[in-house]
C-alpha cells in the first residue's frame, strides 16, 4: 500500500448512504481490488428499491425477463419472507454482463452497500470473468440485450397467439429446463445481432427441415421396411429441449423460438448452478479481504467494521446437523472457509498440508487463487482443495441411506482413514450428474407412430420422483405424439416406466401427411 493512501482520511460512516459516499467507497474498494490483481469487468452500480429487488429475485435474478406466473409466485414468496424479516442479508444481485451490473438496495445501510460492492461488484465480477465455465457458456456482452429481445418476442407472441397458449408452452419448457442444457458440447457464442438477423431465416429453414424429416411417402415406406430403418437420433441426445426445438414435428415456428429462448436462459444459468460454493465463497473471501485491507489502512471507522463483521458472520454461520435450523451445508460458509484455508496452506502450511497439497503448499497465494478460480467447478474444487483440517473443523461425516438396509450407515467421518472418502462424497454431492437424473433422448419411431422415447439411467438405484408424470405430459404436449420413458435396469435390459399417448389432433394438411 502506498503511503499516500495511509495518510488519507476516513471514509464516511453512519447508517445513511449518499451517492457521493457510495462513490467514495467504490473508489477505494476498486483501488484495493486492483492491488490484489482482481481482473474484473467494468462495474456499473444501480440503486433500486426493495420491491424491484424482490422482483429481480423472482425473475431468476434478471432485471429484464419475460412474464410468467411462476415468477409471480416467486415474487409473492419472496415478499412474504422479506416482510417477516426472514431474509437476513444479502439482497445483492449481480448480473454476469459486461459491464457487470451490481444492484444495491435503497433500504440498506451504507455499510451494507459497501459490503455488497466488495462482494458482488468485485468478488462475483472477477469470478464471472475468470472461471472457465462462465467463459465457455455465457456471453456477458450479449445477455441483457438477448433477454430484452426474448421478452419482447414473447410479448409479441402473447398478442398474436394469446396469453394462454404462450403460458402453456412456457410451462412445458420450464418443466424441461434442467434437461435443456448442453453439459458437454461447447455452445456457439450468442449475439443479439446475429440472433435477430438469423431468426427469420431459421424459422423457415427449421420448418422445412422438420417437414422433410416427417415426410414419409407411402412408396418409400414400402421399400424401406426391407432394410433396417436408420436410427434417429443416431446417438442419444442429452439436451432434450434442443431436440424438441429442432425435431418436434408439430411446433409452429414461434413455438420453436420460445423453446429456444427458454433453453438459452437455462444454459446461461447452468454455470451458476455448478459453482455455487466456489463463487459465493470467492466473493465472500474478497469482501472480507478487501474491507479488512481498507480497515488496516485506517479508512474505515470501527462502527463500520462492527456492523460489517456482524453481518458477515451471520451469513457465514454453519449450524450443526442436529440444530433445528440446520438446512444442509451453507455454501457461503463452506466456500469462504475453503478459500481462507487455501490461503493458509499457501502461506503457512503444516506437514499435513505438505503431504496433501504438495503443489500449492508454500506457493504464492494470489497465483494459486487465480488458478483455482479459473479452472474448477464445485465438484472438482472440493475434490481438489478440501483439506483434512477443514473437514475436522466442520466435523463432517457422511451418512449412507440405503433403502434395502434397516439402518442408516455412517460411511466416513473426519478421521485419517475417512478423509478421502468424505471428500469424494462431498464432491459428489455437488455433482449435477449425481444430483439430477440422467435422462436422454433415445429414439424416435419416425417410420411408425412418431413416438419419442427417453431413457433414464438410474444412479445408485434411485427411481424417478412422482413429478415425472407431470413432466412427461409436458413433453408430450411439446412433441405432439406419444412419449415414453424407459429405465435402464442394472442388467442392461430396459423397462417402460411411463407412457403418455396424447396426440395432438390438427385439421390442417400437416396432419394428413402425418397420418399417411
Amino acid at each position, binding site marked *: 500500500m502506498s503511503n499516500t493512501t495511509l495518510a488519507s482520511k476516513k471514509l464516511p460512516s453512519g447508517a445513511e448512504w449518499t451517492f457521493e459516499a457510495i462513490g467514495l467507497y467504490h473508489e477505494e474498494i476498486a483501488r484495493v481490488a486492483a492491488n490484489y490483481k482482481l481482473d474484473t469487468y467494468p462495474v456499473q452500480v444501480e440503486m433500486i428499491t426493495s420491491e424491484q429487488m424482490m422482483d429481480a429475485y423472482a425473475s431468476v435474478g434478471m432485471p429484464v425477463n419475460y412474464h410468467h406466473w411462476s415468477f409471480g409466485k416467486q415474487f409473492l414468496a419472496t415478499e412474504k419472507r422479506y416482510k417477516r424479516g426472514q431474509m437476513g442479508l444479502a439482497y445483492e444481485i449481480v448480473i454476469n454482463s459486461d459491464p457487470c451490473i451490481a444492484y444495491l438496495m435503497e433500504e440498506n445501510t451504507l455499510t451494507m452497500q459497501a459490503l455488497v460492492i466488495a462482494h458482488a461488484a468485485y468478488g462475483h465480477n472477477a469470478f464471472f470473468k475468470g472461471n472457465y465455465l462462465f467463459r465457455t457458456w455465457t456471453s456477458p456482452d450479449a445477455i441483457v440485450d438477448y433477454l430484452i429481445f426474448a421478452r419482447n418476442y414473447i410479448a409479441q407472441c402473447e398478442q398474436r397467439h394469446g396469453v394462454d397458449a404462450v403460458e402453456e408452452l412456457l410451462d412445458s419448457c420450464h418443466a424441461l429446463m434442467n434437461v435443456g442444457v448442453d453439459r458437454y458440447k461447447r455452445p456457439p457464442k450468442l449475439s443479439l445481432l446475429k440472433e435477430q438477423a438469423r431468426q427469420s431465416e431459421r424459422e423457415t429453414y427449421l420448418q422445412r427441415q422438420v417437414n422433410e424429416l416427417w415426410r414419409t411417402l407411402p412408396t418409400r415406406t414400402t421399400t424401406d421396411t426391407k432394410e433396417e430403418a436408420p436410427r434417429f437420433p443416431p446417438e442419444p441426445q442429452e439436451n432434450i429441449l434442443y431436440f424438441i426445438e429442432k425435431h418436434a414435428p408439430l411446433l409452429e415456428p414461434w413455438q420453436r423460438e420460445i423453446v429456444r429462448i427458454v433453453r438459452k436462459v437455462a444454459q446461461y444459468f447452468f454455470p451458476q448452478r455448478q459453482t455455487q460454493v466456489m463463487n459465493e465463497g470467492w466473493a465472500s473471501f474478497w469482501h472480507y479481504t478487501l474491507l479488512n485491507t481498507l480497515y488496516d489502512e485506517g479508512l474505515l471507522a470501527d462502527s463500520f467494521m462492527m456492523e460489517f463483521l456482524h453481518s458477515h458472520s451471520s451469513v457465514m454461520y454453519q449450524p450443526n446437523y442436529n440444530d433445528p435450523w440446520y438446512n444442509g451445508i451453507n455454501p457461503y460458509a463452506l466456500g469462504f472457509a475453503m478459500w481462507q484455508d487455501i490461503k493458509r496452506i499457501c502461506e503457512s502450511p503444516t506437514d499435513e498440508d505438505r503431504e496433501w497439497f504438495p503443489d500449492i503448499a508454500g506457493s504464492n497465494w494470489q497465483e494459486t487463487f487465480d488458478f483455482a478460480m479459473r479452472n474448477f467447478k464445485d465438484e472438482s474444487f472440493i475434490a481438489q482443495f478440501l483439506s483434512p483440517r477443514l473437514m475436522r473443523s466442520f466435523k463432517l461425516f457422511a451418512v449412507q441411506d440405503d433403502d434395502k438396509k434397516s439402518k442408516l450407515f455412517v460411511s466416513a467421518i473426519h478421521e485419517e482413514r475417512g478423509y478421502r472418502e468424505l471428500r469424494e462424497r462431498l464432491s459428489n454431492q455437488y455433482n449435477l450428474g449425481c444430483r439430477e437424473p440422467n435422462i436422454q433422448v433415445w429414439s424416435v419411431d419416425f417410420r411408425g407412430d412418431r413416438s419419442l422415447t427417453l431413457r433414464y439411467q438410474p444412479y445408485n438405484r434411485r427411481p*424417478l420422483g412422482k413429478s415425472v408424470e407431470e413432466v412427461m405430459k409436458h413433453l408430450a404436449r411439446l412433441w405432439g405424439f406419444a412419449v415414453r420413458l424407459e429405465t435402464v435396469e442394472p442388467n442392461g435390459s430396459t423397462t417402460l416406466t411411463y407412457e403418455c399417448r396424447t396426440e395432438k389432433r390438427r385439421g390442417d394438411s400437416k396432419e394428413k401427411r402425418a397420418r399417411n
Partner: protein
Amino acid sequence: MVRIIDRRFDSKKKSTANRQRFMRRFKRQIRKAVADAIDGRSIRDLESGEEISIPSKDLSEPSFQHGKEGVWEQVFTGNDRFASGDGIDRPMGGGGSSGGGGASNEGESEDDFVFQLSRDEFLDVFFDDLALPNLVRTELAKLTEFKTQRAGFTSDGVPTNINVVRSLRGAIGRRKALGAPLAARVREIDEEIEALEQDTTAHLDEIAALREERSRLLIRIEAIPFIDRFDLRYNNRIRIPKPITQAVMFCVMDVSGSMDEQKKATAKRFFMLLYLFLRRNYEHIDVVFIRHHTIAKEVDEDEFFHSRESGGTVVSSALRLMTDIVRDRYPPGAWNVYGAQASDGDNWDNDSPICCDILDKELLALCRYFAYIEITTGEAQNLWRQYEGLTAHHRNFALQRIESLEDIYPVFRELFKKEPA
C-alpha cells in the same frame, strides 16, 4: 470512475405483471378462497385484504427429480457422536436423509402456498362474482369521498376565484387608512386658508404656500392605488370528507327450514354489497339483523348467518319488528333507513297480503329504500306476486329474483342511480 445509476423510479411496480399472471392463473382457487373468506367474514369487514392459501401441488413446477428410494449419501456437519461404520436408526419421516430426499422432492411438499391478497384485489374478486360494471367497482372501492367546501378567503389563488366584494372592501380600507392623514391635513389647510382669507391683513404668500401644499396633498391622495395586489382576496375551497350522515341498514332474512346454506351465502353477498353501496354515501352505518320464521327476532350477525332454526314462515312478523325498531331507535328524521330482505319466497299464504299492507302503508314511508330478493330457482312464490304490485306506486322499492350471484347487482342499479355521489 464508477457509474452509479439511480433506478428507483423506473418501472415502479414492475412485479405487478408477474403477480397478475399468477392471479390470472389461479383465479379459480383464489375465487374459492375469497368465497370462503366471505363466508367467514362480517359483512362490514371489507377494509382488509385476505390471506389466500393454495395447495402447493396445484402450483408445482415439475421437473425430473429423483425419488426417495435407492441409495443416498449425504454429508453433514457437526459430528458429535458418530464413528465410521455406526448404524443409525432411521428417523421417523425420513429426516435422516432429508437433505437428499428434501432436495429431490421440491414441489411435492404438502404445505400450502400462502400469500396476501390486497384489499383491492379482494374486492375485485368479490365484484367479479357479482358481475359489477367497472364504473361501479371503482366508485365502491374508493375509500373516502371528498367534497369541496368554502373555507373563508385566502390572499392568493387563481383569478377565477377572486372575490370582488372582499377585495374592494379591503381596497377601500387601505385607501382610507393611507389617505386619512393626508385628508386630515387637507382639511386643516382648508381651515387655515379660510382663517387667513378672513383676516384683513394680506397673507397672500402664506395662502399661496398653503394652496400649493394642498394641491400636493391632493396629488398624493390621488396617487394611492385604487386597488393593489395585496387587496385581492380569493375564495378558499378546501376538500373535506363528505358530511357525516348516518344510515341504518336492516337485514331481514328468512331462516325457515327451506333456506339452506347456499341460499344464505347468496343472501350474505347481497347484504355485503348493500353495505358497500351505503358506505359510499354515509359515514356511519348501523346494521340491524332480523331473522324470522314464524316469529321475528333481532340477533347479532353471527347468529343471523349461522344458527339454524326451522318451522313455518310468517314474513309479516319481521316487517312489524322492523317498523317497531325504526320507530323506536331510528327516527327517519335523523337516520336514512334501508331495508334489505332475503327470502326463498315461501310464505304462509294468508300472510303475504299482510306483508304487502305493512310495506305499503307504513314501512316504505319510513325507508329510503327497500330491496327484496327472492333466492329461488323455481316458480315465483306468493310473496313475490304480492310484492310485484308494490313497485308501481313505490319508487323506493325494488325486487329481484336471484338464481345466481350475477343477478344481485341489478337490484342496486336503481339504487345507485338514485343516489348521486
